[in-house]
């Protein structure tokens, strides 16, 4: 069997699986259930394979045991030896502690490896907070007053000289100032919506709260709109796979 023929069979299996999954759109059935269980089996199996091949071998085993030097031969350059770091072994007993979780009496020991994972993760959240949000704070501090009154809208820079165009970029026009004001207002209103520990009695704050909720909906609508538009691509891709790649190109060689 040539590789090309194999590919057609491989695609055929994929098509069958796709149809199996789509059958759930009609209703839950045995065909779907078969592929669902096969899928989970393959996925768990793959995780078991990746566990060693992608993580433990490179990150742990190789570093722990090191490697001997390989002498060069036949023009192939040799490789230097790598050092062995025994301390990596300490992680194995710690990891094994996780397995005490099913024991009623000693299950507290499983909190040690868990504590390490959560601890590292929690520390990281503290470390990265400003790096993630700082630049966004800076960007939100947009100038809310125009620096020129020559024009309301930003002029067309398409036919301008480069220097002039750069000048336009550094100018805040009235329309931009209004947009920037709306930006800051939206941000503040949305933030005020998420204040939990104040009993909002003042009318202004309450108004801001409601406005914040509406503006949030604009944001969510925009997310939905831009996402939904692209999600259909996935189903189109499947159809392309079934009808063009498999049937047209694979089976009928057109």
């Amino acid at each position, binding site marked *: 069997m040539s590789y090309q023929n194999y590919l057609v069979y491989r695609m055929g299996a994929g098509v069958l699986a796709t149809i199996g999954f789509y059958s759930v759109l*009609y209703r839950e059935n045995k065909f779907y259930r078969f592929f669902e269980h096969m899928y989970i089996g393959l996925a768990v199996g793959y995780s078991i394979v990746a566990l060693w091949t992608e993580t433990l071998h490179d990150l742990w085993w190789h570093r722990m045991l090191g490697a001997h030097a390989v002498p060069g031969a036949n023009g192939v350059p040799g490789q230097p030896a790598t050092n062995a770091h025994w301390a990596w072994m300490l992680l194995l007993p710690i990891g094994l502690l996780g397995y005490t979780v099913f024991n009623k009496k000693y299950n507290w020991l499983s909190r040690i490896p868990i504590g390490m994972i959560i601890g590292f993760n929690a520390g990281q959240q503290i470390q990265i907070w400003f790096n993630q949000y700082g630049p966004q704070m800076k960007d939100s501090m947009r100038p809310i007053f125009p620096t020129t009154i020559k024009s309301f809208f930003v002029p067309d820079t398409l036919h301008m000289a*480069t220097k002039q165009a750069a000048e336009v970029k550094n100018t805040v026009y009235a329309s931009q100032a209004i947009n920037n004001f709306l930006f800051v207002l939206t941000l503040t209103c949305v933030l005020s919506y998420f204040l939990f520990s104040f009993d909002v009695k003042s009318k202004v704050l309450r108004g801001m709260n409601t406005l914040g909720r509406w503006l949030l909906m604009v944001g969510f609508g925009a997310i939905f709109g*831009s996402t939904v*538009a*692209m999600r*259909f*691509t996935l*189903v189109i891709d499947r*159809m*392309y796979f079934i009808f063009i790649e498999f049937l047209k190109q694979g089976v009928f060689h057109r």
Partner: protein
Amino acid sequence: MSIQPRQPIGKLLMSLNRRILYLILIVVSTVPLFFQIKVPDKPDDSTIDMYSKLMSLPEGSTVLLSTGWTYSTRGENKGQFDAILKILMRRHIKAALFSISDVTAPKVAIEEITELNMERQKEGKKPYQRWSDWVSLGFFPNGDGTANAMSVSLVKAFEGKQEVAPNGSVENVFNSPVLKGHDSISSIPLLIGVESTSATTTYIQKLGGKVPIVFAVTGVMGPEALPYYSSGQVSGLAIGLKGALDLETLMQYGINNPGPNGVVMVPSQHHAGVVPGFPNDKNYGTGLAYFPTLHVSLALLILAVLVGNIGMYMQRRGW
């Protein structure tokens, strides 16, 4: 939810059986695939920024190419990945491929490069060689940690990763022409991420400000990545299938670039200056292939929403 003949029409429109909608969607997203339809495209500013960034890389430099997509988002990411790689191949830029979001991603990416190489060979061009043009660093399960380590030192982050050299020996990736001498992230001119997960956020958190970053993301990650683009943390962004089509269009026409008949096909106020395209190469891929079909599917969505609302209106009126 079944449809009964005696129901008033308003209620009927309001409660269409979902299976009918599903069936229509399948038909609608299949039929147009068989026809070659041309649709107009006006590239987004963020994609224009991405393209100009890619085109301004010095030839022969090395970029980090993070790939996070698998078959699950093939529809969106394949087109973007192909376009980016075509640009890198044509401009002789080296790439170090790796993933922090999915184990299978490097494998998928390598298959994609193989496919593109076959295309190149058909066109009589030099293939993009593993080891001398690109290396695969594989998957890094702890994305946060790896990105953090990358900010400290690339050698430490990619420690122990090996590749097969042309003479058959397995060697450290830092011996390859791609990564030789690139010990620190500061020597890398660009990090490109083709992602379908929030690995984008990880890169911003850990590597933002240390290296210029561009992303090609799926539609759903677009809104998440957009704030980073507008704050300048990301220098360019291609979103979803539109992003793929935009990149393809830009490769065909360039930016502010007069074509053979003197007409500027992609004018941009946002980007000053002319950036050339590759008018003589095969630029279009899945971006153009899927986009017309997407139009029809979206029309169906709008129609479905309209029908539901008309039904509700009619029911309120008692029709």
